[in-house]
């Protein structure tokens, strides 16, 4: 079964869990909090509040036999609160750049979010960072859609080729897959960084380069 196995952390020693700090960024209203809640609680509220300040939730996720604890940080998107948001970028392992497929502006701003993240997370120059580009709200009708999958893919190609996935926090499409994809992406880069010569021995279920260039995961598309 390819779906990631979510479970508690007591099966193995707690210390063996790798704690990964995940930051979700993107314009206000694209569904950052909803993505986090769908992933952590499998719950969606049509009329949730906008986030004030920062919030975070923890969630354990098992990928390829390894248990990770994801500490997911969700922040307020408005420019005004930038100085109180950016400190939380420091020490991140994974960054989700989110937009809503029915909000063109949010897509256009991806580059701004990416740059803001790289600057404040203090990512070393030239270093590849595990970004994941998430187009949320795929549940909207095709008339409401303002950003096509191809466009998003093209943007990714020009911006370090991070994996791209379209999700719906509302109907749970690809949300778990998005987070596990992000972790796999992290694991892949980590393997390359830490152990360049034995990188091949890391058993990733899917071939990462291929995954990264492929565009949208359709519903259930990643069950192999």
């Amino acid at each position: 079964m390819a779906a990631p196995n979510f479970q508690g952390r007591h099966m193995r020693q707690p210390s063996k869990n790798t704690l990964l700090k995940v930051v979700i960024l993107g314009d206000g209203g694209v569904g950052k909090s909803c993505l986090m809640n769908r992933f952590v609680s499998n719950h969606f509220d049509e009329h949730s509040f906008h986030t004030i300040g920062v919030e975070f939730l923890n969630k354990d996720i098992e990928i390829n036999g390894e248990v990770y604890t994801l500490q997911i940080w969700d922040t307020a998107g408005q420019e005004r609160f930038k100085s109180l948001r950016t400190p939380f970028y420091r020490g991140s392992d994974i960054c989700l750049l989110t937009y809503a497929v029915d909000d063109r502006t949010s897509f256009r701003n991806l580059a701004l979010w990416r740059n803001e993240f790289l600057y404040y997370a203090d990512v070393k120059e030239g270093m590849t960072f595990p970004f994941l580009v998430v187009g949320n709200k795929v549940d909207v009708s095709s008339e409401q859609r303002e950003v096509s999958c191809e466009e998003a893919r093209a943007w990714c190609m020009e911006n370090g080729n991070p994996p791209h996935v379209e999700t719906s926090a509302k109907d749970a499409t690809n949300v778990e897959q998005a987070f596990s994809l992000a972790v796999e992406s992290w694991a892949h880069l980590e393997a390359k960084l830490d152990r360049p010569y034995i990188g091949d021995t890391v058993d990733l279920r899917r071939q990462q380069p291929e995954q990264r260039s492929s565009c949208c995961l359709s519903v259930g598309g990643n069950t192999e």
Partner: protein
Amino acid sequence: MDELNDQGVELYSHHGVLVKSQNQIRDDDSHCSGTLSIIEYSGIGKCIEWKPTEVLVDSETNDQEWAMVNAVGRRNRTSSGSNESQSRCRSVRIEVAHLKSFRVTRNRQQVTLMERDGTTHSVFFFQHGNADCFVAALKGNIKTVRSKKDKHLYIVPDEPESQLDRSFAELELFTENTTDVVWKFVRNLHHRPYETTLETFAKLTDIWLFKSSEQRREEEVAELLNRSLTLNETSADAIGEEYAVVDLRNGPLLPPRPPAPRGPPLSIEQWAQFQDEDGHIVEVEILKDIIFRGGVVPNLRYEVWKFLLGYFPWDSTHADRQKLRKQKVEEYFQMKLQWRSITPGQEQRFSDYRERKSLVEKDVNRTDRTLPFFAGENNENLMLLSDILMTYVMYNFDLGYVQGMSDLLSPILCVMTNEVDAFWCFVGFMDKVCSNFELDQAGMKQQLQQLHCLLSVTLPDLSAYLEKHESGNMFFCFRWLLVLFKREFSYQDIMRLWEVLWTDLPCPNFHLLLCVAVLDTQQHILMENNYGFTEILKHINDLSLHIELDSTLSKAEGIYHQLTSAICLPDVARKIIGLDPLGGPDTLEQKEPLQTTDIDNGLKVEEGPESLETLTFSPRTGEVAFERSLNLNYL
């Protein structure tokens, strides 16, 4: 998944356990009944579970294994009936291995469970009998230690045998000098053997569980946050209210906290008595005192709030107010027309306007939608909310729309129901709190620093603890302050709280004392759970809808009386709550002059901590030291 096939073995169960409703809109006494049990699963081990008695099926989420109740989920409410009951009664599962502590209160009928990551779960209320059996069952399955400082609190110490597997050296335990730590341990063990052991063990496991890299990460984040929250030191206004560290643990400064009973709300009959025949409001101070003590009955809010928010002057007559209102209606629609007449083409070329409009649209759809007043699609009140905020953008274009404003307007619109009155009352509210929304966030920074200062004189132990745990910047109170507790209380409570705060009694910045009062209630939980930066943030976020308003207001007023009658309250704290400075060389208690450094005399800000000796108190009353800025504490 494995867990679905794993039925588990029930070790304990108790029926008729209530969980408080998570709905901000409903009255506080609505609850869901269910069964609380301890179940052992072969896969994931022992869990504490609560399931609602009535089984609710929701097509959207029936594939889920478990819905964990959490801070965010709790505040996010749905509007439609069936969804609502579903979200209110979601099952809870807590792995026993994640349990950090629990609190037993209200005649041992209530239990609050807290996890290691700072998550606080809903209160479980045992309507049949009490929680004794549950607590006994828990104790049978895990080791617990009763807190000495908070007799209601039971702490789950971390498993000691796992630590023995590794030597101290391997663990890279201490960021501080190891020798110092060991000596400190030996010294403290002599004086406080129990606490010292617990504290050290907690430290050991915390570092072991959340590796040192995790710790470093938090420290880095906190340090950057401190920089963000530090006021620009060249600002002349700020200098007197700089961040102060007051270490008063050596001597008691504050007298005992006097009781401050709450009163009944202002009634319709009382209100009538405060008006003369022309409509002047008489004896305003007495009136305000009644409102401070008990608020206003809901039916009167429509009238009284207009005065409290400065829309109607207290000394106006009926005729004055009629005239004023006419003007205000005209003025409002004039401003409304300004943005209503912007053509799509103009909008295209007006990005500042477009941005503000887009923000308003997004937030209006996410403001109190579970309230019947704002529920449903194409809700007219939602349109009003949007129109008022857009008109406010024209009223104060420089400030524009900032997230949080829709939260502040919502209850006002709900009370006023009409656009014009709601707008002008909102303007009055914004006049009181607009510094929260400024571009440079100076107002928020200043308040966080003032809060820290008040905390350090009122609860010096907690204040010192927070500093040690990267939380001296008080950032975890950000949401409380930005929208004046809007997200922390039920709708009824927030209306009560705001009308109390709008009286400006008993002192300026009373809302900061309210923060101190909440922290006073949480002090032992935060400290004895040994929470760090992220756990503190989470614990405080999770308090949302779990703060008792009246007792907290009463406590805050008690703290105010403590501070006013304190023998030697530092001037920096006195100024915050509107007391005259004691300063001056003649003052009995201080050798040093107390007035704050005067920047106008060409004093260099960069002089460093030495320049602050004017703020140092005589050691006789306890060591009081002030530091210039937040950063100094973390260097």
